[in-house]
């Protein structure tokens, strides 16, 4: 770590280092691109994975916080950059270094109005094009007169504005997304295959996809903004509503982040219970994935088989947590209630029940020649692209990237159980599918080891009625059902967070759709989308 520090200090003397773990560096806006480029390309640093990109309003200045990680060395660094120009803030774009920055920069522009020089697409990502103001700024005027509920539909731009730097001069550019001669079809926002209100504008050449433009924001609720006015226990209620198929895991991440900040030691029993529930959640999510992918490919009967079995998982979770989808089970310092006496029996029954059903799944779908031909070799994502786009989770692991947070940074009791990280190297739709099917088996294996060994003790520690976090920045992440779910909290010592950012695993999945589907057919677009398994509320937040 000190080596990196020395190197950075040598390269750009103007950077400022902050105390603490991980290494936090404030980079002047003018040198940011150069520093980022050397961080990525230097053979001893190789920060090739942009984990999280957070827009910030520090009062006087606007800025961005970047969380970078090296996939080869595993070390992490946090970069901060800021501009004091609140009227017309401009920062350097890193979308040429990390593909993941492309949509994230649009998000930051949408929320903070910071425009990125070098990004050719500076449209708003979530809000309407005619939205007035930038809602995440602390001086934003939220009065409904400024942004009334508009009844006319928002126009989709075919020509997008951008900023480029040429010969030291910053110039506005316009790039054409779709020209008049293109046959552009809307897939979504109301479409059976987008799994929610997501909209793809697809340019077609006959059946062949030429270009896909993702339009998000139909289910944007501003959860991060809402969190800024809620107390910490209250923010917990909202994480369940991000990726509703990984409700428990999302909440686990937020609880972990708050506990880390407060220095709370969670009882052993609670850790076991959390891990068990995480895996149950993963089971339900992957079973749903299996069902919906089958449905997307037209095998409607298989869809019902998956749902039939998922129902049993939901029953187990409901009995213990009181909720099927929105479980509301983790609390700061542990879990809400002890496990239900029936849970152990039910889980054991389920562990015996599911494997024969998985055999049936294989016979009815995995082995099916039509299914195989529709998935093999379709939508190949290379490992480099997966890292650059930040495609984590089963989709990233199908491309050969060892990105399982449960292995990289064990939380809960994942360091005490024996399980394989399922990795495949093909990177195509079929591999993404197989990784998830194998993860179902692996989850059963984890549950088998845990369910009999839950230690006795408290299921939660007592916390004060009013929770305040010490001043500082905190980041923690878990392996949610579809990838790394991270929580970034910046606290100023209040009982409300100053800024909360959720690193959603689904935004990269959506951003990679264009890259994967070009040159394939419409039917493949559906198959690829189904295999990426994005959940729209998690994209839009």
């Amino acid at each position, binding site marked *: 770590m000190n080596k990196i520090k020395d190197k950075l200090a040598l390269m750009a003397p103007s950077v400022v280092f902050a105390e603490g773990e991980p290494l936090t560096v404030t980079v002047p806006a003018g040198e940011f691109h150069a520093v980022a480029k050397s961080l990525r390309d230097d053979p001893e640093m190789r920060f090739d994975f942009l984990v999280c990109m957070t827009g910030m309003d520090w009062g006087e200045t606007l800025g961005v916080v970047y969380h970078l990680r090296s996939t080869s060395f595993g070390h992490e660094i946090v970069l901060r950059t800021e501009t004091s120009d609140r009227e017309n803030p401009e920062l350097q774009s890193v979308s040429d270094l990390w593909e993941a920055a492309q949509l994230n920069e649009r998000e930051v522009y949408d929320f903070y109005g910071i425009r990125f020089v070098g990004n050719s697409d500076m449209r708003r990502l979530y809000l309407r094009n005619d939205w007035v103001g930038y809602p995440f700024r602390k001086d934003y005027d939220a009065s409904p007169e400024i942004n009334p509920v508009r009844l006319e539909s928002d126009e989709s731009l075919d020509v997008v504005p951008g900023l480029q730097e040429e010969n030291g001069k910053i110039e506005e550019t316009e790039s054409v997304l779709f020209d008049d001669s293109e046959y552009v079809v809307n897939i979504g926002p109301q479409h059976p295959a987008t799994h929610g209100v997501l909209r793809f504008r697809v340019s077609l050449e006959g059946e062949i996809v030429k270009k896909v433009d993702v339009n998000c924001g139909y289910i944007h609720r501003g959860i991060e903004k809402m969190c800024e006015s809620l107390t910490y226990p209250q923010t917990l*209620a909202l994480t369940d509503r991000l990726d509703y198929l990984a409700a428990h895991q999302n909440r686990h991440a937020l609880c972990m982040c708050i506990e880390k900040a407060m220095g709370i030691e969670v009882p052993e029993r609670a850790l076991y219970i959390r891990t068990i529930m995480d895996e149950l959640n993963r089971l339900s999510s992957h079973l749903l994935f299996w069902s919906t992918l089958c449905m997307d490919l037209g095998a409607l009967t298989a869809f019902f088989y998956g749902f039939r079995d998922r129902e049993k998982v939901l029953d187990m979770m409901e009995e213990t947590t009181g*909720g099927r989808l*929105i479980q509301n089970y983790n609390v700061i310092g542990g879990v809400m209630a002890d496990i*239900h006496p029936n849970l152990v029996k039910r889980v054991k029954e389920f562990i015996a029940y599911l494997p024969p059903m998985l055999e049936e799944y294989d016979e009815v779908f995995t082995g*099916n*020649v039509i299914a195989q031909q529709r998935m093999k070799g379709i939508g190949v994502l290379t490992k480099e692209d997966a890292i650059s786009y930040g495609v984590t989770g089963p989709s990233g692991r199908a491309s050969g990237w060892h990105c399982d947070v449960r292995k990289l940074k064990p939380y809960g009791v994942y360091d005490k159980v024996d399980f394989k990280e399922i990795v495949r190297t093909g990177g195509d739709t079929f591999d993404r599918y197989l990784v998830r099917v194998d993860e179902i088996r692996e989850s059963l294996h984890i549950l088998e080891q845990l369910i009999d060994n839950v230690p006795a003790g408290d299921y939660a520690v007592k916390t004060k009625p009013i929770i305040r976090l010490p001043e500082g920045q905190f980041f923690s992440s878990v392996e949610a059902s579809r990838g790394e779910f991270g929580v970034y909290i910046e606290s100023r010592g209040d009982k409300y967070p100053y800024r909360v950012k959720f690193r959603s695993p689904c935004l990269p999945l959506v951003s990679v759709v264009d890259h994967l589907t070009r040159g394939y057919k419409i039917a493949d677009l559906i198959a690829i989308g189904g295999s990426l398994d994005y959940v729209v509320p998690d994209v839009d937040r």
Partner: protein
Amino acid sequence: MSAFKEYIGSFFKGLTSLLKGMRVTIRVFFRKKTTEQYPENRATLQMFDRFRGELIMPHNENNEHKCVACGICQMNCPNGSIRVESETVTDEEGKKKRVLKRYIYDIGSCLYCQLCVRSCPHGAITFDTKFEHAVFTREKLVRQLNHEGSTLEKK
């Protein structure tokens, strides 16, 4: 020749995989169905006891509840679904006391996060397992939880 062999081989391999799938579906065809016949099974339908259906305020046989109208639940609610209306009355001994007038709960905006139940110092509210909430207008989703003429339970 090998290409021809592959052509034939792939054809039959494909055919077997299809037949395997058909074997699974026909087996399921004769299996017991999993459908739950909901309105018919109403009498026997048992929800899990931890299921959160709606917020209720239990009253005992003397029409007494435990709410002291402190308003902690209202403060803790992230969505503003609870409104505690209280009034100050003077009792026989001349002491001023805050008593609950109306406890208003809007189920339409409830997040079921349980912060109210967990934070209540007197255990006055809890979640019920009733789940049939469909009504025709939003106004009907706003309920008064304390019964008419109810009073605070005496210790």
